[in-house]
C-alpha cells in the first residue's frame, strides 16, 4: 500500500483490513478495566495453555488454506488420536503410543491427500467423507465410552510447567517455528504458495502441484494427531466426541489472522494472532460470566463478521 | 458456460422468448438453436453438444449467437477473434459485417491492428483509460493509430 498514512483516502482500506485486530484490542482494553484479574499472569498462562493445543493444528490448517484447500476431518483425527493414544498407552507404554498415534494421523492425512490430489475430489466432500468415517471408527472402537489412562510419562508431559506455562505451548511454539521456516524459506513452502495462488500456472511452471496438495493433508493429519496427544496428556482420557469443533476453529483462526481463503498468501505468523485473539475473547467472555448459549451466539457472529470483513478487504486490494 | 450445451448457452440471454409463462418450451429452444447453428455455420454433431467439446472458433460463434439472439441493437465484442483459427476468424468478420449491414451498431475491442484497421468505420484509440483520439476515413492507418497510442 503506497503512502497510506499520507492520503486520507487510503485510511479506509487500512481500517477494514485491521478492523478485527483493532476491535480486539479495544475489547481487551475494556476487559482490563472491567476485570483487572484478566491481566494477571495466572489468567494469561491459562489462556496460553488452552489455545496451544488447538493452535498446533491451526498451523497445519493455515498451510492447507494457503494451498487453497481445507480439511474437515481434523476434528475426527483429533478425537481418534486421543482414543488411540490412551489405548496404546495402557497397552504398550508412552513411546510406542506417541509414535503410532502420529503415524496413524499421518496415514489418515495421506488418505485425504490421495483423494484430493490424485482423484481430484473437492476437498470439502473428501474430508466430509473421511470425517464421518473416522468419527464412526472412534465411536465403534470405544463403544462410545471414554478411555482412561494412568500412564506416568504421559501424565508428566501434561503436568510439566515452567512459570505456569505447560508443555503444550512449547510444542506449539516449536511447531509454529518449523512451519514458519518451512513455508517461507524452503522450496516446498514456496511451491505451496504457488499452487494455492493459481493451480494451473503453478503446474505449467513445473511445480509438482500434486505433491503439494498431498503433503498438506499429511501435515494436517499429523498435527491433528499431535494436538490429540497433547490434549490427552492434560486430560488423561480419550473419548470420541472430543475436539468436534477443531476444524472450524482452525479455519476461523486462520481467517481472523488474515490469511485469505482464496489461497496463495498469508502465513502461520498471522494465524497465531488469530488463535490468540479468539482465545482472549473466549476467556474474557467466560470471565464476564456470559453463559454457554450466548457464547455460542457470539462465536458464530464473530466468524461471520470476520469473513465478511476479510472478503471486503480482499476486494479492495484486488481492484 | 462450458459444461452446458449449445441450446442452453444460446437462449440464456432472452429466456422469456422461449418460455410460455413460467415454463420453458424445449421445442422452441431447439428450434432457435437450430436456426443459429445454420446461420452462423457452427460445426457440431448436435445442438445438444456440450460447449467444452467444441473448438475455440465454434465456441466463439455460440457466444456470438447468444448475443444475436438477444436482439440487442448495440453489440460490444471484446477480442472476438482471439485464439481462433484463421478460417473461423474470417467467418466471424463476415458475420460482424452482416450485422452492421442490418443496422446494428458494433463496438469491437481488439488489440490486433490488422483486424481493427480492416473492420472499423471509426477507430477510437485508448491509452490508460482515456480516449486519445478518433480516426475516420483516410486517417485510418497503422501509423496514425500508433502515433495516438504512444503519444
Amino acid at each position, binding site marked *: 500500500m503506497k503512502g497510506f498514512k499520507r492520503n486520507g483516502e487510503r485510511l479506509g482500506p487500512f481500517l477494514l483490513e485491521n478492523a478485527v485486530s483493532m476491535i480486539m484490542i479495544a475489547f481487551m482494553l475494556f476487559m482490563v478495566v472491567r476485570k483487572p484479574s484478566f491481566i494477571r499472569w495466572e489468567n494469561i498462562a491459562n489462556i496460553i495453555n488452552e489455545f496451544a493445543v488447538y493452535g498446533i493444528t491451526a498451523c497445519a490448517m493455515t498451510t492447507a488454506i494457503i494451498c487453497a484447500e481445507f480439511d474437515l476431518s481434523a476434528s475426527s483425527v483429533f478425537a481418534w488420536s486421543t482414543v488411540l493414544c490412551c489405548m496404546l498407552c495402557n497397552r504398550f507404554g508412552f513411546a510406542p503410543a506417541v509414535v503410532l498415534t502420529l503415524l496413524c494421523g499421518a496415514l489418515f492425512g495421506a488418505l485425504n491427500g490421495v483423494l484430493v490430489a490424485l482423484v481430484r475430489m473437492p476437498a470439502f466432500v473428501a474430508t466430509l467423507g473421511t470425517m464421518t468415517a473416522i468419527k464412526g471408527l472412534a465411536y465403534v472402537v470405544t463403544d462410545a465410552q471414554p478411555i482412561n489412562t494412568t500412564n506416568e510419562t504421559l501424565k508428566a508431559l501434561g503436568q510439566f510447567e515452567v512459570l505456569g506455562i505447560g508443555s503444550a505451548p512449547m510444542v506449539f511454539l516449536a511447531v509454529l517455528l518449523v512451519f514458519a521456516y518451512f513455508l517461507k524459506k524452503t522450496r516446498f513452502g514456496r511451491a505451496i504458495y504457488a499452487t494455492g495462488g493459481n493451480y494451473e500456472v503453478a503446474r505449467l511452471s513445473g511445480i509438482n502441484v500434486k505433491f503439494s496438495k498431498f503433503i498438506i493433508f499429511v501435515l494436517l493429519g499429523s498435527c491433528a494427531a499431535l494436538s490429540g496427544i497433547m490434549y490427552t496428556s492434560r486430560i488423561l482420557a480419550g473419548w470420541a466426541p472430543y475436539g468436534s469443533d477443531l476444524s472450524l476453529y482452525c479455519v476461523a483462526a486462520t481467517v481472523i489472522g488474515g490469511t485469505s481463503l482464496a489461497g496463495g498468501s498469508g502465513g502461520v505468523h498471522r494465524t497465531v494472532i488469530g488463535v490468540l485473539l479468539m482465545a482472549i475473547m473466549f476467556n474474557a467472555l467466560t470471565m464476564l460470566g456470559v453463559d454457554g448459549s450466548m457464547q*455460542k451466539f457470539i462465536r458464530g457472529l464473530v*466468524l461471520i463478521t470476520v469473513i465478511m470483513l476479510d472478503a471486503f478487504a480482499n476486494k479492495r486490494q484486488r481492484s | 458456460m462450458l459444461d452446458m450445451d449449445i441450446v442452453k448457452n444460446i437462449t440464456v440471454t432472452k*429466456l422469456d422468448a422461449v418460455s410460455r409463462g413460467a415454463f420453458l418450451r424445449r421445442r422452441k429452444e431447439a428450434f432457435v438453436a437450430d436456426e443459429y447453428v445454420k446461420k452462423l455455420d457452427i460445426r457440431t454433431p448436435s445442438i445438444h453438444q456440450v460447449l467444452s467439446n467444441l473448438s475455440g472458433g465454434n465456441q466463439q460463434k455460440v457466444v456470438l449467437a447468444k448475443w444475436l439472439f438477444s436482439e440487442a441493437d448495440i453489440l460490444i465484442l471484446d477480442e472476438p477473434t482471439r485464439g481462433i483459427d484463421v478460417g473461423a476468424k474470417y467467418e466471424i468478420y463476415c458475420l460482424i459485417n452482416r450485422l452492421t449491414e442490418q443496422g446494428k451498431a458494433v463496438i469491437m475491442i481488439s488489440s490486433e491492428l490488422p483486424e481493427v484497421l480492416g473492420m472499423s468505420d471509426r477507430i477510437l484509440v485508448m491509452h490508460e483509460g482515456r480516449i486519445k483520439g478518433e480516426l475516420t476515413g483516410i486517417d485510418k492507418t497503422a501509423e496514425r493509430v500508433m502515433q495516438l497510442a504512444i503519444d
Partner: protein
Amino acid sequence: MRKYINRDALLNLMLSNGILLVIVALILVTGAIEPNFLTWRNLVNVLRQNAVVGIVACGMTYCIIGGAYDLSVGSVVSMSGVIAILSINAGVNEFLAIAYALLAGLGVGIANGSLISLINGRSGEAFIVTYGMQVVVASIALFPSNGLFIAGRVSEGFFKTIGRGYWPIGLFLAIAVALEIILQRTRFGRKMCFIGSNMDAAKMSGIRVKPHRVSFYAISGVLASFAGVLLCSRVTSSNPTAGVGFEMDAIAAVVVGGTSTNGGRGSIIRTLIGAIVIGVMGNALNILDITAYHQQIVKGMLIIAAVAMDLWNKRIRARRMAHERV
C-alpha cells in the same frame, strides 16, 4: 468403433448410478436374509422417518446446483421446532405457529443469501458464512429452554396430523416433484444451473446473480424449517438439538443421488432417490445388527465412493467426447 462406444455407455451408466446399484444390491440381500425387511409396513416406516431429512436435502440440492453449500439447515430444523412448539404453548393458533416457524427459516435463508451475495462469495466463503450462521441459529434454538426439551401442549388438529401416517411421505414427494419441475422446466431453474456452472458468465449474460443466490438460500431455509415443523409434530415436543447433523445427511443424500458437487447440473429426483436409498440402507444395516456407529463409517465411505465415481465418469465422458471433437 461401435463396440468401444457401447462399452463406454455401459460404464457411464454404471458409474453415474453406481452407488445406487450397490445399495440396491445390499437391500435385496438384506431382504433375503430378513423377510420382515421388505414388507410394506417396514418400508413405509423407513420412508416416513427419512422424509424429514429428505425435505432438507431438496433445499440443499438447490444450493449445491447453484454452486455452494448451506450448512445452517441443521440448526434451522431445531430452531423452527422450538419456535413452533413455543408459539403453540403460548396459545397461538397452530397454523400461525407453523407460519412463524417458516418465517424464521425464511429469515435465516435470506440472511445467509444476502451476506454471501454481498461479498460475492465463492463456495469457500459461503461455507464459512453458513457455518457461522449454523452456530448462531443453534444458540438461538438453545436459548429459550437452556437445552431442555419443551413439552408441547398440542391438541388434536392439523399440527399433530402432519407428522403422522402418510402425511410426511406425501409432503416429501409433493415438494420433491414441485421442486424438480421448477428446476428443469422454468427459467428460474435454468438460471440456477447457469449460476452454478459459471457465475461470472451468468452475470454477463444478463442474469441477476445476487437476487437469485439469495433465493436459493431462502428456499433452503424455508424447507429446513418446514422439515423441523414436521419433525416436532410427530413427538409434539421441541428438541433444541433435533437437527444436529442434518446438513451432513442432506449433503450425503444429494451426493449419493448423483448430483454433481460442482454445481450447474442436478436433479431433485436423484436426491429423492438418494435420500430414500440411504434411509433404507440404514434400516437394512440396523436389521443386520450393524450399529449406528458402524453406519457412520459406511456413510463416510459412501460419500467418498459416490463422488469418486462421479469424477471418474466425467473423465471417461470427456475422453469419449474428445474423439468426437470438431
